[in-house]
């Protein structure tokens, strides 16, 4: 299992970021990121959401049991470079399951930040939270995200038709799952 921890450090170094626990001070950068078109498109957020709503939601979640929130921070500039969440299932018969959310602001996309965050989230899942299954949902046309998830061992398990409404049209979503190796 140490291979996951090693992987976590090397992919963070490679991306030039440090992965740490999220803190309330990250709320403003997080809220600003949520307004970016690629983030709205790839998540279930609405455009034109008040940043005060997003900030409050962010801070509230940091105090929630079973939700682990990480921040990627650029080593040189200390700029907010990404957001990762591992949420553990609360239902008794699904305690072995966690779900993942990964968001990288546009100015940091394509540099390996998503991989660094994912490595850290899977280290938590595999080596600390005793999870057996990790799952996530992604729009079928989010090619870059899907290929990142595949590299980490996620497989497309289901395709949900008309899973969300985006910019005037219904979009299909994949459910991807990873069983602990």
């Amino acid at each position, binding site marked *: 299992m140490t291979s996951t921890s090693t992987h976590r450090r090397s992919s963070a170094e490679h991306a030039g970021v440090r992965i740490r626990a999220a803190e309330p001070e990250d709320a403003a950068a997080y809220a600003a990121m949520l307004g970016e078109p690629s983030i709205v498109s790839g998540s*279930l957020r*609405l455009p034109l959401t008040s940043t005060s709503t997003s900030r409050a939601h962010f801070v509230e979640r940091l105090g929630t049991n079973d939700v682990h929130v990480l921040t990627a921070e650029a080593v040189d500039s200390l700029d907010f470079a990404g957001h990762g969440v591992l949420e553990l299932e609360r*239902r*008794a*018969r*699904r*305690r*072995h*399951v966690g779900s993942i959310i990964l968001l990288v602001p546009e100015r940091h996309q394509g540099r390996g930040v998503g991989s660094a965050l994912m490595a850290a989230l899977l280290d938590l899942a595999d080596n600390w939270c005793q999870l*057996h*299954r990790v*799952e996530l949902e992604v729009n079928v046309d989010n090619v870059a995200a899907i290929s990142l998830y595949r590299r980490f061992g996620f497989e*497309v*398990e*289901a*395709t*949900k*038709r*008309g*899973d*969300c*409404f*985006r910019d005037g049209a*219904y979009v299909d979503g994949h*459910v991807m*799952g990873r*069983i602990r190796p």
Partner: protein
Amino acid sequence: MTTQLLDHAAAATRAGVRIRALGTADAEACTQIMASPGVVHGTMQVPWTPVERRRSWIERTTTDPWGHLLGAELVETGELVGNVGLHVNANPRTRHIASLGMSVGDAWQGRGIGTALLAAALHLADDWLALRRVELEVYTDNAAGIALYERFGFEREGTLRDFAYREGTYVDALTMARHRTAHR
């Protein structure tokens, strides 16, 4: 799929049940239904769930404007024998979707009660809530459940591996959905 199948009143009559909204007064009856071994086996219930927890679940679901909870009671005795929950998503980008879960007590299987409950839930979804997509998860080995859902037009969208824990082992689930796009 025929309109006949979706005639919820006829389905209830055939099964000898009345469909009605549930409330916290039904907590004990729901606890009994959902504690029957077949229901625990086929759902996400755990054995020995206390009535209090069931009551708070009913309260949350029925006071939430997005939750709809129906029960089937025998016309003859008034006994509650099954229930169905329809939970509409609150997020504006997914509010065309509801997820569905249902239970019929072990002693009352095979009498069309599931059909009556499902027809009533889909009547709500189609004719009153304007939903486009109703989705559910069902264990891959629940042949009777899958057959019921397929009769109503639910399609298989994939298999979620080791979805839940059941009797000492992980079990896969199908995710199924039924689409309706004929709103005017």
